[in-house]
């Protein structure tokens, strides 16, 4: 058992945690930023697929990974804007609209890829580019720690740097305060002159940007190609992480890391002759378990609050 644990907890395992957490963290920031504004963006999964494909195609056309990334992220934001239009203007139920977007993306990406390359479901015919890994000077030289923290994809660093930025935006900037006000009580926000809809549009666009980063990371960092349905539930894990972290950026990051650890662990356990199907269940199982624990806690808190306020009365 000790040997097994030693085999698992190596520097490369911790390196892998950051690698697999990256898309989940981006997705959970995407979920957080729209959640805060009172909108559940179920479409993150689909947005990831759209940007993953766009990134691959554009980078193959221009032979520049960066332009692939930028266009991928913009296209994702545009689709998120479309989602916002249907929800805010045409009053489509946001969950159904998000699911529709996911269905559209799942088939639409395969369709577009087939039309462009004649290939069904994988982009190996395209000579697409990958975003670079970054070696951090100094830290790189430290034994173990360097191995864990250095030589990650540039988007991995952007993901973790985004966490304090989102925190600063939400808690130190007037716009962030307005976002939170809308989420807490849209009527009150409206009564003090906040343009609720306009800011909700903005929130969904920002959410689309983060979802786009998650997507381009999948096809231009995590692996170097597009394959159908490659988001594989990570968008939904992001939603779960945002819910678990109560939309507090640093807690959400911890929740995303938790999913990342489960994911990385499942890759390692596979080498221990545990049936791969059982191993693949782990991240999802953990999601349900943690979501339940979280719900039980907040349920108790709520119950306490109710009894207190009843006593006050």
């Amino acid at each position: 058992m000790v040997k097994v644990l030693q085999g698992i907890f190596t520097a490369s395992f911790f390196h892998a945690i950051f690698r697999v957490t990256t898309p989940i963290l981006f997705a959970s920031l995407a979920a957080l930023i729209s959640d805060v504004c009172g909108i559940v963006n179920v479409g993150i999964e689909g947005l990831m697929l759209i940007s993953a494909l766009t990134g691959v195609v554009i980078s193959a056309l221009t032979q520049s990974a960066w332009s692939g990334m930028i266009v991928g992220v913009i296209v994702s934001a545009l689709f998120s804007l479309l989602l916002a239009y249907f929800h805010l203007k045409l009053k489509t139920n946001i969950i159904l609209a998000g699911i529709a977007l996911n269905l559209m993306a799942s088939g639409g990406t395969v369709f577009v890829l087939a039309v462009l390359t004649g290939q069904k479901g994988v982009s190996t015919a395209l000579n697409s580019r990958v975003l670079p890994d970054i070696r951090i000077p100094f830290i790189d030289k430290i034994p173990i720690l360097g191995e864990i923290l250095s030589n990650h994809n540039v988007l991995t660093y952007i993901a973790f740097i985004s966490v304090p930025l989102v925190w600063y935006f939400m808690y130190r900037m007037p716009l962030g305060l307005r976002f939170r006000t809308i989420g807490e009580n849209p009527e009150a926000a409206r009564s003090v002159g906040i343009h609720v809809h306009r800011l909700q549009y903005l929130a969904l666009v920002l959410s689309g940007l983060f979802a786009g980063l998650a997507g381009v990371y999948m096809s231009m960092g995590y692996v170097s190609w597009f394959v159908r349905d490659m988001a594989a539930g990570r968008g939904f894990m992001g939603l779960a992480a945002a819910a678990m972290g109560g939309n507090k950026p640093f807690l959400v990051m911890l929740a995303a890391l938790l999913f990342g650890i489960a994911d990385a662990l499942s890759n390692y356990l596979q080498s221990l002759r545990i049936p791969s199907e059982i191993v693949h269940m782990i991240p999802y199982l953990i999601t349900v378990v943690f979501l339940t624990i979280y719900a039980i806690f907040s349920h108790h808190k709520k119950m306490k609050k109710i009894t207190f306020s009843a006593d006050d009365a």
Partner: protein
Amino acid sequence: MKKIQVFDILRILIALLIAFFIGFIIILLVSEEPLYAFKLFLVGPFSSLRRIGNLVEMTIPLIFTGLAVAVAFEAGQFNIGAEGQFFFGAALATILGIIFKIPAILHVPLALLGGIVGGGLVGAIPGLLKAKWQVNELVSSLMLNFIFLHFSLYLVNNHFRDVHTGIMASWKIEETAWLKQFIPGTRIHVGVFISIIMVIFTYYFLYRTKWGYALRMTGINKDFAIYSGINVASVIIYSQVISGALAGLGGAIEILGIHHRFQWQALPGYGFDGMIIAIMAKNNPAFIPIASLFLAYIRKGAEVMNMMSDVPAEVVNIIQAIIIFFVTAEAFLSKYQHKLVVKEVTTNG
């Protein structure tokens, strides 16, 4: 019929028209022979007895997941788990079909029961979690899809895998567990009658029983339901269990009627299809078969087009998404709807 109902139907038809129009534009953009491709899409499904047969075969599982989602929607619950319920129901039915060697009169009901219990169990989990601790059923039922996807694959691939075939598939189920295919030249099987029975059952349950009434009240206004003494927690649980059982039964019937062995390695998508169907049918069980047939029709059309022209079948996913967008868009044509309501009220009053 009231004008408002006519309006509802009209609204769905307009949504379909818009979706088809956009689909046509896309075909126009990508195809060398767009008119031929579009014609294949529209009339392809009726071009041979086998294809008409396919249409009916494809409709059967859709009816089950459509009913499953409709029941959950009516209770105000999001059952995104129909996918996993269908899958697990199919896996359990397969296993029961393989291990038992008993006469058909017992074997078929046993395997079907396996599907019902399997789906119902998977449905019970998000129901219980929601009723007891307010765990968001959207996320939990979604995660359960992936959990039961892998769990079912674990069971089938590790314990019931047919080692003689080159592909990953289970052993064939015993012939005593097959649902008979009764129209030569097609694979239409007796599951079609079971699906009709379930449509009637679901309709009766929702609109003619006390439980159905409580369920619908909870869906319309949860607080009102609580104040009028309805046990909302139990409604949430039994609506999810019934919903899951319907989806699981659908999975079992698909195995016993069509495939006779378990060979899916990924979620086949029937759960989300059920959602599209429930939306088009406005959760009314009576309309579910029509909506299912329609979905099967555009799928088959896309398949024929894919086979005989240069347009990939996945264009149909885009069309489906547009249908959902417009059918569920409450503000779409709402000014006209408002006018109609006013008119109706003033003429009646």
